[in-house]
């Protein structure tokens, strides 16, 4: 018997064994068909089909979590809207059957919504429900229901909330061809504690019913594999009291700061200040800003605090900064680029930070997000000095800034690498894109070698470099970063203990060895596997 092994990106740490349940939608439900019925007969077929299917879906989702149910209900309400059936009428008059007219009406409405990203993200789900409606009309199963008995590994291209809401106790794992570490499927699986491997190329070639092992720690799916074949989660045993490099916490406000103070984090490596502004309908006064910052600085864990100035954009809008619509928000006016149009606000934020630093006496560095030129850094440096802030730094998120680092001597006293955005911009791959998850894998050699480049250039400037992206929350990667010469990592408060333990369990020499292995690898899988083998 030949065993197939698929590789992807693991979600969770427990492995699972079960039988493959392929969630495939028959193409026949999407076909454009015409009808011999009259348009009014077909219109009543459509109305009945929508009503019946919606009732069925509401029944099935009655026990899923309230948020998922609300979203599903919203989608059903869109499909039940008489307006949609009005939009379908012209197509019925042309002789289309009910499902064809429904799909065309949805397409027409989606086109009308055009630039609305939130809606676009729901279109696949709406089409999924429309497919069930079509299946009802045409007598085709639009997607088999998952049996309540047995132990199933759900295998699909990608999963929609409609599908995940139907998961019962019989579902023990998930494998998807598409999706990335931050996609809908990954988030849901984490929330349900379901092991998953996403972005697994070749998933749909698995056979219905075959037994497979889902091995998230090993980032793989093994057909015929047993639980005993699963990659063991690494356990680190601390060899010293302190981690090899400083571990700080990422925070967004007072609640996080308080939470972080209860961990062993030594300070804050990333305070995302935009969180304070995202829900403000008007620009807060200087006094209000100072008060918020003082509160957070007081509550933050002992140690250095790195504050990032406002990092908003048209996809992360701040109500009182009119940002307008952009075709491509990730490549638009965001981060420090906002200071061009909203200079007064940027000055007021820096003045508030300076006052809060004064009032609390904390050791604080302030950094700018999304800078890519020497001029931008000069301008940020000037603004900080004007406000009385002396420890000035920048985020490394754009590939361009890496190449001009030698020109920043005297302008910055520290650097912080945001690996999430740096990946997105290095690989020209949208972080949220379902098909591009593999490019945003933090083990990508292109990313790791860029991090190394930053460290080398920073050594010439004699300034420290931290990593504050999600990648640092991976204990193995935090060791790799330490070995490269990164001097601090900053992670979510919930990850502080795991990362600190891993970093306390290795020697400088081991970390260097791990970084050499990771940097020599030519694929993400090879990088992760060789480093894991050192500690496994």
């Amino acid at each position, binding site marked *: 018997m030949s065993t197939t092994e698929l590789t992807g990106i693991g979600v969770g740490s427990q492995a699972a064994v079960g039988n493959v349940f392929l969630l495939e939608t028959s193409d026949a439900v999407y076909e454009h068909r015409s009808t011999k019925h009259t348009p009014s007969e077909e219109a009543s077929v459509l109305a009945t089909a929508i009503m019946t299917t919606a009732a069925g879906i509401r029944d099935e989702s009655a026990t899923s979590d309230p948020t998922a149910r609300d979203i599903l209900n919203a989608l059903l309400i869109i499909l039940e*809207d008489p*307006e949609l059936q009005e939009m379908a009428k012209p197509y019925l008059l042309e002789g289309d059957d009910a499902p064809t007219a429904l799909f065309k009406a949805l397409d027409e*409405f989606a086109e009308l919504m055009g630039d609305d990203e939130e*809606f676009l993200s*729901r279109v696949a789900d709406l089409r999924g429900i429309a497919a069930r409606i079509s299946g009802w009309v045409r007598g085709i199963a639009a997607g088999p229901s998952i049996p309540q008995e047995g132990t199933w590994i759900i295998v699909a291209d990608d999963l929609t909330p409609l599908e995940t809401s139907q998961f019962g106790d019989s579902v023990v794992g998930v494998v998807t061809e598409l999706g990335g570490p931050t996609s809908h499927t990954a988030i849901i699986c984490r929330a349900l504690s379901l092991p998953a491997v996403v972005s697994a190329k070749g998933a749909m070639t698995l056979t219905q019913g075959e037994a497979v092992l889902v091995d998230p720690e090993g980032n793989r799916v093994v057909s015929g594999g047993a639980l005993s074949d699963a990659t063991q989660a690494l356990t680190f045993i601390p060899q010293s009291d302190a981690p090899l490099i400083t571990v700080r916490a990422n925070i967004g406000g007072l609640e996080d700061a308080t939470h972080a103070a209860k961990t062993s984090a030594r300070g804050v490596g990333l305070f995302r200040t935009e969180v304070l502004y995202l829900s403000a309908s008007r620009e807060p006064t200087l006094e209000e800003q100072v008060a918020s910052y003082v509160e957070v600085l007081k509550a933050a864990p002992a140690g250095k605090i790195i504050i990032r100035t406002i990092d908003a954009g048209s996809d992360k*809008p701040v109500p009182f900064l009119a940002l307008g619509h952009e075709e491509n928000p990730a490549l638009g006016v965001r981060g420090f680029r906002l200071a061009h149009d909203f200079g007064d606000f940027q000055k007021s934020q820096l003045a508030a930070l300076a006052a809060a630093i004064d009032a609390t006496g904390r050791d604080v560095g302030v950094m700018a997000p999304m800078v890519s030129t020497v001029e931008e850094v000069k301008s940020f440096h000037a603004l900080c000095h004007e406000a009385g802030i002396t420890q000035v730094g920048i985020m490394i998120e754009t590939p361009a800034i890496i190449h001009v680092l030698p020109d920043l001597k005297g302008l910055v006293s520290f650097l912080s690498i945001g690996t999430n955005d740096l990946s997105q911009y290095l690989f020209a791959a949208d972080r949220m894109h379902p098909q591009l998850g593999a490019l945003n894998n933090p083990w990508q050699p292109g990313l790791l070698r860029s991090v190394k480049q930053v460290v080398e250039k920073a050594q010439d400037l004699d300034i420290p470099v931290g990593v504050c992206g999600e990648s640092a929350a991976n204990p193995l990667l935090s060791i790799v970063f330490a070995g490269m010469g990164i001097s601090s990592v900053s992670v979510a408060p919930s990850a502080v203990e795991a990362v600190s333990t891993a970093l306390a369990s290795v020697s400088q020499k081991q970390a260097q060895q791990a970084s050499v292995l990771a940097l020599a690898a030519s694929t993400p899988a090879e990088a992760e596997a060789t480093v894991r083998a050192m500690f496994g």
Partner: protein
Amino acid sequence: MTINHTFTVMDPVGLHARPVGQIVTLVRESGATVTLRNSDGKEASAASALKMLAMKVKSGESLELVIDAQDDAAGHALAEAIEAFVNEG
């Protein structure tokens, strides 16, 4: 009894599918007639999810509710609930 209630949309993604679904459900149950009007004077009936979504209300925009309910109290309660769906959803 007609009530007007104006508020600012603060949800970062604007008026999106989930609150729209909640609004349709609530308005349907209440039996009231509710119209949404944006600052450009564009209107949508709160009975139609499609029409509300097509207004494409963004974060920071103000939204006026025109509520025709059986009495003042019912109208105000509806206004408050809708604002909460939009901004706290």
